């Protein structure tokens, strides 16, 4: 029992929570934007892989870290545009298109990686983002190192939570985005074209997914390998339901999942005689439980997965 308390009380673990949560926060916000405007984006898993690769490759070829992040965002937006083109004006199945984008983007990412980097026994590395201590605040005992000794992209992700929450609920554009996901006919009747709004929002959401992927290669690790996303994208899709499509709760969900993950990692090292796979399973099982509890009250955007065609009801 005391082992558990040791883990829960350690600064290292709580610091890891925020780090593990960062790509989930970015990805979840991305999915949330897409779904709020009425489109399911299952391309996230592939878009994150592509973002991870292109961000890393940009830095490996001499760009600086922020240029890498930007490249990841642009790459994500490009795949978002493809997804939007197929699902919004053409109205194709969002499930099939999303899965297709995931397969395409992750394979394409590996292909580009293999073309540009020669095979080596150990993967080539870059210098990743370093923790940025916020003066004064990082000296607060316990909270200081946990909250204020993270890398820059983590702060950026947290800023995005606030930005998107404000944007969705306090600006005319955000209201239009929500309306597009609830009833695009109503939006059109008020003189705003839902088609372009959906395309634009999907691109923005996909850019966030790309940045979430890039966090893995530019901050959490320092190299790229093709299997590194490990289902994080799918977790984000589930977290959006958990969050009832609200940015604040999306942050909460991402932190909760990261907490389970950080906890089980440490548990593996101290508990003997239990297969480690059981611990690996833990965050996913707990996520399903949390999802069951939270999703019952969820208010699904009414026009989610319904293509909009003018003059058709």
């Amino acid at each position, binding site marked *: 029992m005391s082992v558990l308390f040791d883990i829960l009380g350690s600064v290292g673990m709580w610091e890891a929570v925020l780090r593990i949560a960062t790509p989930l926060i970015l990805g979840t916000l991305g999915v949330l934007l897409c779904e709020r405007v009425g489109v399911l984006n299952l391309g996230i898993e592939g878009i994150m892989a592509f973002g991870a690769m292109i961000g890393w490759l940009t830095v490996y070829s001499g760009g600086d870290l922020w240029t890498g992040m930007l490249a990841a965002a642009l790459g994500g937006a490009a795949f978002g545009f493809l997804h939007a083109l197929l699902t919004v004006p053409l109205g194709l199945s969002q499930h099939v298109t999303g899965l297709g984008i995931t397969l395409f983007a992750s394979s394409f990412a590996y292909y580009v990686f293999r073309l540009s980097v020669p095979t080596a026994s150990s993967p080539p590395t870059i210098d990743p983002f370093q923790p940025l201590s916020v003066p004064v605040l990082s000296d607060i005992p316990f909270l200081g190192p946990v909250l204020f000794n993270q890398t820059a992209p983590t702060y950026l992700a947290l800023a995005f939570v606030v930005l998107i929450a404000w944007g969705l609920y306090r600006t*005319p554009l955000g*209201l239009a985005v*929500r309306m597009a996901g*609830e*009833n695009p006919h*109503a939006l059109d*009747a*008020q003189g*705003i074209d839902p088609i372009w709004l959906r395309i634009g929002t999907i691109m923005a959401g996909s850019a966030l997914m790309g940045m979430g992927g890039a966090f893995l290669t530019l901050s959490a690790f320092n190299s790229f390998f093709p299997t590194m996303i490990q289902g994080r994208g799918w977790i984000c899709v589930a977290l959006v339901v958990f969050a009832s499509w609200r940015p604040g709760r999306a942050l909460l969900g991402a932190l909760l999942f990261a907490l389970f993950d950080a906890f089980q990692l440490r548990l593996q090292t101290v508990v003997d005689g239990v297969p480690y796979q059981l611990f690996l399973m833990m965050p996913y099982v707990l996520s399903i439980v949390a999802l069951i509890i939270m999703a019952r009250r969820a208010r699904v955007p009414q026009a989610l997965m319904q293509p909009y065609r003018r003059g058709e009801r």
Partner: protein
Amino acid sequence: MTRVLELSHITKRFGAVTANEDVSLHLDRGEIVALLGENGAGKTTLMSILFGHYTADEGTVSVEGQELPPGRSRAAIRAGVGMVHQHFALAPNLSVLDNVMTGTEPLWRLRSDRAAGRAKLVALSERFGLRVDPDALVSELSVGECQRVEILKALYNDARILILDEPTAVLTAQEAEGLFATLRQMTENGLSLIFISHKLHEVMSASDRVVVLRRGRVVAERRTSDTSREELAELMVGRKVERPARPPATPGRVLLSAVDLSVAGKGGASLHGVSFRLRAGETLGIIGVSGNGQTTLAGLISGLYPPTSGSLSVDGRAVTRYSVPDAIAAGIGRIPEDRNAEGTIGDMTTWENAVLERIWSPDFSARGFVRRAAARKATADILERYDVRGATVDGRIRLLSGGNMQKLILGRVLEAGPDILVAAQPSRGLDEGAIAGVHARLLEARGRGAGVLLISEDLDEVIALSDRIRAIVNGRLSPAIPAERANAQLLGLMMAGDWTAAERIEAETHDAL
């Protein structure tokens, strides 16, 4: 009189179909113009052109002397044109204020001024008597309240010209009356209105001027005070329409007998101690404002749920099992209240919809297989005999207009030769020509010896078709009066729950029944 709106020489074609041809129309300040026409006459197309949802092939629209650029709803909104759609364009998960404010501010503003929006909304709703809570979610509102939100949306955009597309289609008779009172008040505040309708009585009572559209052309324009219901009906349909007259009844044995039936909370209401008898070859009309238990009564007789107390006998046998297949087997046919939700399955084909109710009968299935050829043949027969237009045997039924869908449902139920026919709001939302057709079929079924239970909130319909009439009020049935003694005033009293006159008449005529 200032002219606020002018549509001149509008022509619109969809492929080979001409929806509007050389239509000209104007609207003066403070005026209510009714655009009257049957379903498919091109009314909605014309208004969509005005509002910029479609572009006209020829012709122009001008508001207060300024020509509108074609195909731009934003321009129409700016010019002060507001449209209240027949199918509400609202988001149920958002608040009333959200719904109203969408698209009213510049999109890229960093902060939405919700306090100002709320103040404006509250002021408007007070000024026009359109009471609604700005913070309520639209999903919590009634249909009438949703319509208020739609109107407020247009007013919020500073509309001075309001277009209402079949505004009463989804309202109860009472809500419709309230709506027209509100509209009249709006014209006093300087608004000008066009409302689209195919209901003669509301056109006669609510408009200043009527423009009649038939097959895409303006066929007549009249001041409402200079015309009559009969003239408008003839102009609208293009020939003299007469609703069929009811021949005298020859009531036979008692087919349906209800004794003290009660149902708690099904079909949106309850029934309390309902008793009545329905004989072969007669029509019993049940009149009432929606929500007083008529849906519950229809559902009970159709076998959807059992009564909590009381008994029902069909053709002398007490009903023991309440289920839809048992009801159908006992010879009860039904015309459901909501064609789209209960009467048909929109994405299935016409033939599937036509036979689904009787799919287990040996006519349509054998050894677990559907007899498709027989089913399709039966459907083709219905389409022909009941004059269902625009339908193919294999087409999706969703594509049919309301009137034609109703004809198919009538055909489906009458071909099965039911002894008892429960017809709930059979002509709701239909135009004059279609109503006449439905009435003729109902009289035909009665003439054949079926007992018809007609549930309706249309006074004229009930008086025209029924032999005896009862009112339903809060789940209770009034005494029955013969149709010959019925008039609007007496039925109004009965629907309001004042049954003294009805009791006297029932006592006088009881022997005859």
